[in-house]
């Protein structure tokens, strides 16, 4: 019987082609949107981890209360010991210190007088150690527009957009006006080694990157850092492991009254990502729901039209002794076959743009020029194991739902009425 039904579907294109096309389009869009959303989340997590909070982050308790203001007067002191400690306790992680700082950057003219100034947000990272992961995490080599990566003390990288606004180039001098860890004003001269494009509007507007030793010296932060970031070695965020490490680390200091005692936070809570991730889960659910609903409506109508066209066939089948329930079940079976074929083709064609977007990305940074959110302007898709299967849910569910509703019309119709329509 299955073979018989399959032959009918293959030979009667009006019965199969339109529903398959509908499922195909719906599933392809679902697969693409799903992988795009996955990519969006993945990019958001990576950006937040690399530029902001790591997969886990150690701060002092006091710093953590006001971490959005980067209060370096509340920084961790004695980071060498602490890093050795966490490296020993959590060998699966890479640990790296960072100092975030703010200030003014002053560009002198040829006489040494101020030519232009601008507010700057800075990030001091370990650029010089051979084992440092920062060049990779911050994607510095690929993001370099002009000049080179700093190789000597007192060299900085500056955001390319910012550099153009300040009309500076590699080799020019820039003076940072900021305050030390102890509140004194400080001015430090740097040489611009290169310009980079972060791809994150908030950073491209006015950020600099320096080696951490320069800033420790400049801001009087000897063996201190605002934060120590921990990254999983595969650079993927593992929620359960991250929270496990956080809990185990914080357990050691839970009884400490010292406001400078270290405390660890995990990425979602540190970046406020947990709400976004929850929203995106809901968005995925809604998108799939919309596709199921829309496709079911279209396929219901297609099923009704097909059923009207097939009244003659139904009448014959009833006359030769096929039971109404069996006819209804074969219609559902046909819809499952259509759902599988449409979902397979839709998944295949949905994966093509998803893969291309995963590899090459889509540069929409012009849309985020004014954004202060830590989000990359180059959107990537992310194809996961679920992507291969996700399309089958709306694909099969919608065809079965559409056919079930349409088929009720046949099921409810009296046998003799069908028989009359057969003769009509």
């Amino acid at each position, binding site marked *: *019987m299955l073979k*018989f039904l399959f*032959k*009918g579907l293959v*030979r*009667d294109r009006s019965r199969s082609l339109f529903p398959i096309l509908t499922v195909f389009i719906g599933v392809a869009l679902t697969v693409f949107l799903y992988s795009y959303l996955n990519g969006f989340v993945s990019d958001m997590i990576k950006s937040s981890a690399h530029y902001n909070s790591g997969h886990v982050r150690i701060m002092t308790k006091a710093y953590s209360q006001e971490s959005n203001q980067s209060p370096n007067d509340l920084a961790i002191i004695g980071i060498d010991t602490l890093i050795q400690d966490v490296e020993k306790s959590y060998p699966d992680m890479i640990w790296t210190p960072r100092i975030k700082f703010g200030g003014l950057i002053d560009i002198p003219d040829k006489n040494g007088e101020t030519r232009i100034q601008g507010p700057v947000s800075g990030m001091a990272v370990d650029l010089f150690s051979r084992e440092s992961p920062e060049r990779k995490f911050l994607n510095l080599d690929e993001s370099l527009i002009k000049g080179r990566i700093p190789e000597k003390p007192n060299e900085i990288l500056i955001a390319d957009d910012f550099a153009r606004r300040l009309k500076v180039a590699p080799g020019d001098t820039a003076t940072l006006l900021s305050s030390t860890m102890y509140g004194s004003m400080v001015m430090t001269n740097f040489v611009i080694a290169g310009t980079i494009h972060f791809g994150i509007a908030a950073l491209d507007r006015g950020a600099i990157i320096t080696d951490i030793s320069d800033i420790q010296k400049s801001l009087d932060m000897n063996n201190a850092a605002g934060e120590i970031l921990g990254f999983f070695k595969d650079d993927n965020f593992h929620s359960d492991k991250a929270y496990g490490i956080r809990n185990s680390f914080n357990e050691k200091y839970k009884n400490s009254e010292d406001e400078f005692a270290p405390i660890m936070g995990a990425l979602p809570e540190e970046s406020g990502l947990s709400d976004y991730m929850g929203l995106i889960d809901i968005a995925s659910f809604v998108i799939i729901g919309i596709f199921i609903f829309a496709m079911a409506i279209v396929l219901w109508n297609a099923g009704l039209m097909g059923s009207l066209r097939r009244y*003659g*066939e139904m*009448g*014959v*089948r*009833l*006359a*030769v*002794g*096929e*039971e*109404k*329930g*069996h006819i209804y079940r074969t219609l559902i079976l046909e819809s499952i076959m259509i759902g599988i074929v449409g979902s397979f083709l839709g998944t295949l064609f949905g994966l093509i743009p998803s893969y291309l977007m995963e590899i090459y990305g889509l540069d929409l940074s012009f849309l985020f020029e004014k954004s202060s959110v830590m989000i990359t302007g180059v959107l990537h898709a992310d194809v996961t194991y679920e992507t291969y299967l996700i399309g089958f849910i709306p694909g099969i569910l919608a065809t079965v739902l559409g056919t079930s509703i349409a088929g009720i019309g046949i099921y409810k119709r009296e*046998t*003799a009425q069908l*028989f009359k329509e*057969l*003769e009509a």
Partner: protein
Amino acid sequence: MSNSFLIKTEKLYKKFPMGPTVLVALDNINITINKGEFLGLVGPSGSGKTTLLNIIGSLDSPTQGSVEVLGNKIETLSHQDAAKLRNNHIGFIFQTFNLLPVYTVYENVEFPLLLQDIETAKRKELVMQALEWVGLADRKDSKPSQLSGGQSQRVAIARAVVKKPELVLADEPTANLDAKNSHNIMETMVKLNEELDTTFIFATHDEKVMKYLKRKITLNDGYIQRDENISLNNQ
């Protein structure tokens, strides 16, 4: 004694509500049909021929009265039991052939056997045998659209008799055929009636069919006007 007849109707009524009034399609029908009969329900349009054929074929149920077909009370049959009765014991032939257009001749004839879960080899044997009966074995791979009207109706006959039913119900089987094809079709059915002892009941007002009938029940406005055995006149 109930098994000595194939079909028996007693005080059979079929009424259709038509707005405020009721149309009496069948009015106190009492007939008995025995195995092997070659019988025609004749009469003008609207006389109740097709309604009676549908009730005998368990496609419809009576409003009142009793209909017994092959030991089954039609008025009490569930949908499932009615389907089983049709599947195992009754074949239908239609005026417009009603072959499934996307399937081949072979597949159209095979379809009733698929519902009976008969194994492939046996199915093939029965289908080819039925196609031999109607002289279309060489057209088994053709599609209905490639057949003439007469050939299509012969395929429909093969489909009706492939499961060797006790009863074949034919509603105006020659209405869409020319004289020559009508004659061939009727000859085929007479042959099957004689060789397989299958009971044939026709609903018709075609004179070409009537001359082959051995019994003729004339209906008029839903009641039996005349029930005559004409086999002797036909010889």
